[in-house]
């Protein structure tokens, strides 16, 4: 316990030491006086011979200390005192840093959750998906062949979208679900929370009436009851039995059908040999030791064999890592945002470095005094760095609060389609990132000022006796460099934001082809109810339309299978009359829409030529079809498509000829900025029974006079009166659908714009600060010049010229970097090139205005200087 005693007796030791030294000196002085020196001389001589008493005393004390620890504490105490003494400086610096660090932390936590964290499956980096062109589904025939023939996957499974009607409950509901083959859950490596997974034999028709519930569905529909296993559910009018419940954090599928709340076995039945109906997404796990490349080459081997056997069915399939499929689309956007916040932080650093530099000039004398008292250069650098690190830590603390709030806002504002955004949180990774960023920041803005101010020349600083020194050329250069780089970074951010703005304007000006205002849409389904057969289904929809049209406040109404933008997208191949049969896999195809008469009117889609689908186009009249302009132009270029005939292929043999009776304007189909693809509209009432049965639901489109949702309760009760088992889902308005479709670019624009605004503000504050500082330093000089006859404009020129030049250089460098970096964000842009000259010009203008304003105010102050005051200054 020796060290405790020592710790307690430390003060005693120190007083002993300093007394001892004082006694030593006085004894020496006495001796020297005794030898005939004057007292004054003796004092000087004694001090000279003794050396720096303070320093020696400190060295003596250090013997007893845990050196680094204690001087660190002393440094921190001192730093806190200095920071308290300059509250304005401290608050501004901490806020600036908090902005930079907070923004970085918030964006990084999104990057961490979305891009970096593994998917919630076992060894998720060994999971792959097989998709047509990497996006589209696969036919059952191909899937089963791959499953049988490959040697590279431990397991391969398929999933198919399913939206059954859940009935037998108070309010029938359409639910999101998936049919999955029995391999899926084992290959994901996730165990059910309750019950079991699916068995191989449940992939047979008739044995497939089991469901596994998600945790959420279990809680919502069964109150989390432990006895849920074995309970029945009515889906599409058939009885299913609950066999399992998945754990809370289990989600499947990760990139599409993400809202699935229950899973049932995938029984392909007589579809097993189908090579045309592409509806399956394939998941597989790589065997240990097999690389992605090996799997790809094996799959392409299998596919080229299949392609010979079944021409046109097995090309362009892509094996992708599952994670790539989930996050690949979002990665460029997130990286752009991360880059943007990095620049914000750099600008914040530059600003604080400015402030530190300006302060270090003021503190030159303090440093000189400390050096004179025996502080080594290393010691002073350490002290100054302690100050900057303290500032950063305070900034990081405030930044953390800012980040917590920022994450909250980000998640709330984030558009659909950013995967896993709900899991964004501040975890250990984020904290480590923040810590590293903070330390780097502290060193970044602290090191250079510390090095500079510790290198003071003792004599000069002390000799100046209170007058602020005129800064050396090196200080000026450093400051100039900081300012120029701040400008450069602001340019880069502004160019990014400017490009997003331009691209957003371009997106906003796209004509969707229909009039979205006052349009209510809802999905109606009667699958599984008494009126599920074709005749009564058609009658039901006919009655719904009629009654809805009769409602007060409803102007028009229509029905379509899949709503543009929001709905599904089915493709059908067809054969054109009089043309040679195309080679397999090259048949013409178009988006397949099925409508009731009145749809185009309700949506306000202009018929360019020909006629609308009419009530008279029924089962007993010749088949008709309306096509969009794109289809007409692609398949009958330079001719009139009206009157031409084609037949659907791929379903029934001998499908009837359909005559083109009308051509509509192109309408946005799926993606907002995607150019229109060929599209056909068939009358529902002329569909074959099989084709009608495929449509499990239809979408009702209602144009209202007033607020669209105001008629919803009426519509709902009308529909339920006609069929109490009908389900109504996806209630939406067309304007909302459009907002949703443009939500991602809007979100990026918002974020980039916010970052650019912060950057611009910081840069302006920085420039203002630098200018005010240099004006105040030069007050004396300005006074002399004015006393000698310089006019205000001369002074203005004098103080602004150099900084404006610097800003110009910075801006130019920024443009060069921005042009290079903007290429990285071209995938986020629409209708504007990454080197758009208008954007760059705009940015330069904005910066010039801000720069001028920030320079002008302090410069004006310089010209107002009264020569007499200035000459007496300080």
């Amino acid at each position, binding site marked *: 316990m020796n060290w405790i005693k020592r710790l307690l007796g430390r003060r005693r030791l120190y007083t002993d030491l300093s007394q001892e030294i004082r006694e030593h000196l006085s004894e*020496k002085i006495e001796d020297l006086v005794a030898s005939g020196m004057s007292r004054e001389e003796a004092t000087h001589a004694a001090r000279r011979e003794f050396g720096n008493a303070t320093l*020696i005393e400190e060295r003596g004390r250090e013997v007893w200390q845990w050196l680094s620890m204690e001087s660190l504490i002393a440094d921190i105490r001192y730093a806190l005192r200095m920071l308290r003494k300059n509250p304005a400086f401290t608050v501004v610096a901490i806020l600036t840093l908090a902005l930079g660090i907070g923004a970085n932390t918030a964006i990084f936590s999104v990057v961490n959750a979305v891009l970096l964290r593994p998917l919630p499956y076992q060894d998720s980096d060994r999971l792959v998906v097989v998709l047509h062109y990497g996006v589209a589904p696969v036919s059952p025939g191909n899937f089963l062949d791959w499953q049988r023939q490959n040697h590279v996957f431990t397991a391969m499974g398929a999933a198919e979208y399913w939206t059954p009607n859940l009935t037998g409950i108070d309010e029938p509901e359409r639910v999101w679900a998936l049919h999955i083959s029995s391999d899926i859950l084992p290959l994901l490596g996730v165990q059910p929370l309750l019950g079991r997974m699916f068995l191989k034999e449940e992939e047979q028709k008739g044995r497939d009436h089991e469901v596994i519930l998600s945790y959420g569905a279990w809680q919502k529909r069964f109150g989390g009851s432990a006895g849920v296993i074995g309970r029945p559910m009515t889906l599409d009018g058939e009885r299913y039995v609950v066999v399992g419940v998945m754990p809370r954090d289990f989600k499947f599928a990760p990139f599409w059908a993400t809202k699935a709340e229950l899973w049932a076995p995938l029984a392909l039945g007589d579809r097993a040999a189908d090579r045309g109906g592409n509806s399956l997404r394939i998941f597989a796990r790589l065997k240990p030791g097999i690389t992605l490349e090996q799997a790809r080459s094996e799959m392409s081997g299998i596919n080229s064999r299949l392609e010979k056997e079944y021409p046109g069915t097995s090309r362009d399939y892509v094996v992708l890592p599952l994670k790539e499929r989930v996050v690949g689309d979002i990665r460029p956007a997130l990286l752009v945002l991360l880059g943007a916040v990095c620049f914000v932080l750099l600008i914040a650093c530059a600003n604080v470095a400015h402030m530190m530099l300006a302060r270090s000039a003021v503190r030159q004398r303090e440093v000189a005094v400390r050096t004179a008292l025996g502080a080594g250069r290393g010691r002073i650098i350490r002290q100054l760095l302690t100050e900057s690190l303290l500032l950063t830590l305070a900034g990081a603390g405030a930044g953390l609060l800012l980040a917590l709030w920022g994450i909250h806002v980000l998640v709330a504002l984030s558009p659909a389609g950013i995967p896993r955004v709900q899991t964004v949180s501040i975890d250990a990774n984020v904290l480590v990132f923040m810590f590293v960023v903070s330390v780097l920041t502290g060193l970044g803005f602290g090191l250079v000022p510390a090095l500079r101010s510790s290198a003071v020349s003792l004599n000069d600083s002390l000799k100046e006796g209170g007058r602020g020194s005129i800064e050396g050329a090196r200080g000026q250069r450093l400051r100039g460099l900081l300012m120029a780089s701040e400008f450069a970074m602001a340019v880069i951010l502004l160019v990014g934001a400017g490009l997003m703005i331009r691209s957003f304007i371009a997106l906003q000006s796209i004509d969707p082809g229909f009039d979205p205002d006052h349009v209510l849409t809802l999905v109606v389904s009667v699958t599984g109810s008494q009126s599920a057969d074709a005749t009564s289904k058609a009658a039901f929809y006919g009655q719904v339309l009629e009654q809805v049209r009769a409602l007060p406040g409803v102007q028009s109404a229509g029905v379509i299978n899949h709503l543009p933008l929001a709905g599904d997208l089915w493709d059908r191949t067809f054969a054109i009359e009089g043309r040679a049969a195309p080679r397999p896999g090259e048949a013409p195809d178009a988006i397949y829409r099925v409508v009731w008469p009145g749809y185009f009117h309700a949506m306000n889609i202009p018929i360019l030529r020909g006629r609308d689908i009419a009530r008279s186009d029924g089962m007993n009249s010749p088949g008709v079809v309306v096509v969009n302009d794109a289809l007409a132009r692609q398949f009958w270029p330079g001719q009139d498509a009206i009157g031409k005939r084609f037949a659907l292929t791929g379903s029934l043999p001998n499908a009837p000829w359909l005559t083109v009776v009308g051509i509509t304007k192109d309408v946005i189909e799926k993606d907002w900025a995607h150019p229109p693809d060929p599209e056909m509209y068939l009358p529902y009432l002329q569909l074959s029974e099989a084709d009608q049965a495929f449509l499990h639901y239809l979408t009702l489109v209602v144009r209202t006079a007033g607020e669209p949702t105001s008629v919803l309760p009426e519509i709902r009760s009308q529909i339920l009166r006609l069929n109490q088992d009908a389900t109504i889902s996806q209630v939406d308005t067309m304007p909302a659908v459009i907002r949703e479709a443009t939500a991602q670019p809007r979100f990026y624009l918002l974020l980039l714009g916010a970052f650019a605004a912060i950057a611009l503000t910081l840069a302006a504050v920085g420039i203002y600060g630098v200018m005010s500082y240099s004006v105040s330093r030069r007050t004396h000089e300005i006074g002399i010049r004015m006393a000698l006859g310089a006019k205000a404009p001369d002074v203005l020129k004098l103080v602004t010229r150099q900084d404006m030049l610097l800003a110009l250089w910075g801006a130019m460098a920024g443009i060069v970097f921005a042009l290079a970096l903007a290429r990285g964000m071209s995938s986020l842009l629409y209708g504007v090139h990454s080197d758009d000259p208008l954007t760059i010009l705009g940015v330069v203008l904005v910066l010039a205005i801000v720069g001028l304003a920030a320079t002008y105010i302090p410069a004006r102050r310089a010209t107002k200087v009264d020569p007499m005051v200035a000459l007496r200054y300080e």
Partner: protein
Amino acid sequence: MHGYALVQHIKRTSDDLLQIDEGSLYPALQRLLKEELVEAEWGISSTNRRVRTYRLTPAGIKHLNQEVSNFERMLEGVTRVLARGEA
């Protein structure tokens, strides 16, 4: 002996051959104190001053002997090398 006396002693007995920085004595003394090789005590000197005198502890004496013999051996080595060089 106290600090100032120690300095004077070194200067005197070495006939000013060994000049030491007076101040540097004190950190060295602190180190010895910490290692418990010396102990210190406030007292009154012969010139009637309040002084802090240092005395070797038994451990200090042992350590001193060891250091002295080390030093002597080194010195002897150096002397021999130099002697051979001359021959």
